[in-house]
């Protein structure tokens, strides 16, 4: 067993931390307040290489392992969830399925652009009536001459409607005959395709500088060469993408917890009441000790899960556990960190206010906490009823 991360990962962490502190921290509050997606920061992240982290250099990516990717997301989330979300969604959900399931032609067509920061790709699984129950996908794809006609709607799609978005992977039902077993397939739908439109969802409580959109397909023709994987592989592609994606959401929880903890620790060492620094009151110092412990546990387990993935071992159960644990401690720690800030923590002037809101998505997106427990329980040989 070797827990030494080594110089290269530390250099990576320091580099991302510097970038996040200098390029993101000064703008995060403003972008959050205005609910604004930043083209400028996205392009800078592209220049750093954050938008094609695990993709092979053959397609313009960086060819790093999953642990590197997770450290990058963690460090971005330590400063701002929205910026981490853009990176996580693009890498795990956007380029991930194309890289893993695309044909050589598809990879060559899309990946070199998608790894630069000049283009984003979205992942369209969730629908108004198909959230946790992804088998309820109602979008349809009907075979036509040399392609498919798509009809349906997707919602809550990250990076779905930014000026950089060049398309989305859409899961649709292909076997739609009466009495047939449901069959799903995935399609690469380019932005600008007639019948394909997008619209940004406004009024989010969290991740306000990350783009969330609705996608509409109306008699939208997609050529045969844009089928991703094989007919009938839709669920497999989507679910395996989510397994990996969960690690990035876990990294967002870990980074958020770390950031909130640091704010609370600093505040507790500078705020005095009753003649003492508030961190010296036993209740608060114990709270901080608990936070530090939870973060260490979360990090150790998340990195172990990355190690499983990087070494081609199965990691579905562990990914669910890591996502569940990291996102739940993010909530606990953001909550206690805010408590330590007292009334000031409720004011926008303090970053903890943003962290408190931002963490709330983590127990819902890419499979709710309940669904993670379901996945874990199934791995225990149980068959939860629902």
């Amino acid at each position, binding site marked *: 067993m070797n827990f030494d991360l080594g*110089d*290269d990962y*530390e*250099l*990576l962490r*320091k*580099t991302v931390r*510097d*970038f996040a502190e200098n390029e993101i921290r000064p703008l995060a509050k403003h972008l959050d307040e205005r609910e604004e997606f930043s083209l400028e920061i996205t392009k800078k992240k592209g*220049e*750093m*290489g*954050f938008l094609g*982290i695990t993709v092979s250099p053959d397609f313009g990516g*960086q*060819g*790093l392992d999953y642990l*590197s990717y997770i450290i990058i997301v963690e460090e971005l989330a330590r400063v701002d969830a929205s910026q981490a979300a853009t990176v996580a969604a693009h890498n795990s959900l956007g380029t991930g399925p194309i890289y893993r399931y695309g044909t050589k032609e598809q990879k060559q067509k899309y990946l070199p652009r998608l790894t630069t920061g000049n283009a984003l790709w979205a992942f369209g699984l969730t629908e108004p009536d198909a959230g946790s129950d992804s088998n309820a996908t109602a979008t349809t794809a009907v075979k036509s001459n040399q392609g498919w006609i798509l009809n349906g709607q997707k919602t809550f799609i990250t990076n779905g409607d930014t000026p950089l978005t060049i398309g989305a992977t859409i899961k649709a039902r292909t076997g739609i005959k009466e009495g047939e077993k449901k069959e799903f397939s995935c399609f690469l739908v380019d932005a600008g395709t007639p019948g394909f439109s997008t619209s940004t969802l406004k009024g989010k409580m969290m991740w306000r500088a990350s783009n969330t959109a609705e996608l509409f397909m109306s008699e939208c023709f997609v050529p045969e060469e844009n089928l991703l994987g094989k007919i009938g592989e839709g669920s497999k592609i989507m679910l395996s993408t989510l397994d990996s994606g969960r690690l990035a959401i876990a990294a967002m929880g870990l980074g958020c917890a770390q950031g909130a903890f640091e704010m609370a620790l600093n505040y507790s060492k500078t705020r005095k009441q009753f003649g003492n620094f508030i961190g010296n009151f036993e209740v608060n110092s114990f709270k901080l000790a608990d936070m530090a412990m939870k973060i260490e546990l979360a990090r150790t387990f998340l990195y172990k899960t990355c190690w499983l993935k990087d070494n081609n071992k199965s990691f579905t159960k562990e990914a669910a556990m890591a996502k569940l644990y990291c996102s739940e401690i993010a909530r606990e720690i953001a909550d206690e960190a805010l408590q330590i800030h007292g009334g000031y923590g409720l004011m926008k002037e303090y970053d903890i206010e943003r962290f408190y809101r931002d963490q709330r998505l983590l127990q819902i997106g890419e499979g709710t906490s309940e669904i993670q427990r379901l996945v874990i329980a199934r791995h225990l040989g149980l068959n939860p009823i629902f």
Partner: protein
Amino acid sequence: MKIAVCLNHVPDTASKISVGQDNQSIDTSGVTFVVNPYDEFAVEEALKTKEKVGGDTVVISLGNDNNKESIKKALAMGVDNAVLLKTNEIYDSLSVAKILANEIKTQNAEIVFFGKQSVDYDNGAVGQMCAELLGYNSVSVVVGLEINGNKVRAEREIEGGREIVETELPVVITTQKGLNEPRYASLKGIMAAKKKIIDEKIPENCSNYTETISMKKPPAKQPGRIIGTDATAVPELIRLLKEEVKVI
């Protein structure tokens, strides 16, 4: 053209420094080390110079294995080669300058960058000493630089203004904040750095010219004193500033 940049690995300025058991050195336990902040400008300028005039860059660092962390950062930023002059000794400025000058000679570097000072001992002397030992021209505390062929035009910071200096290669430049914006190491750079080799050499023995007798922390800052809250306090304030603090 060979361009060298000398790099020091120093305690992060945000870390809390305490004096070690021996009263002669700092206690490094729990202290994080970083690239000397002024050396980051030196690395950036070396890279920019290479981009303009071509050639090869080499980073040279004197210290132990821990220095590799900072060397790797320079490599990830884009420096081509690296030399670690490996030692556990702590040398004074002149000894450091002699060891570095030797290596610069071996490297045949004609443009050499240093940070204007290291934030550990803060002597601000090594760059200029090296220049003298090598017989190179030297410009220190540089905030603007142009190199054209053999000609060097440097702007340096002086009390209350800027001075423009012209000289020729070979030259030692010590860099000051404001000269440039150090780039981030990109992921590509970090990957490329993994493949670069750090050439480890044992420097020739050198004896120090100075001896550290003891180290102590500066006395704790006195708390502020409130003399009064209205105009009647002014005469007493002026008296104290004149007689006690002696600033007016």
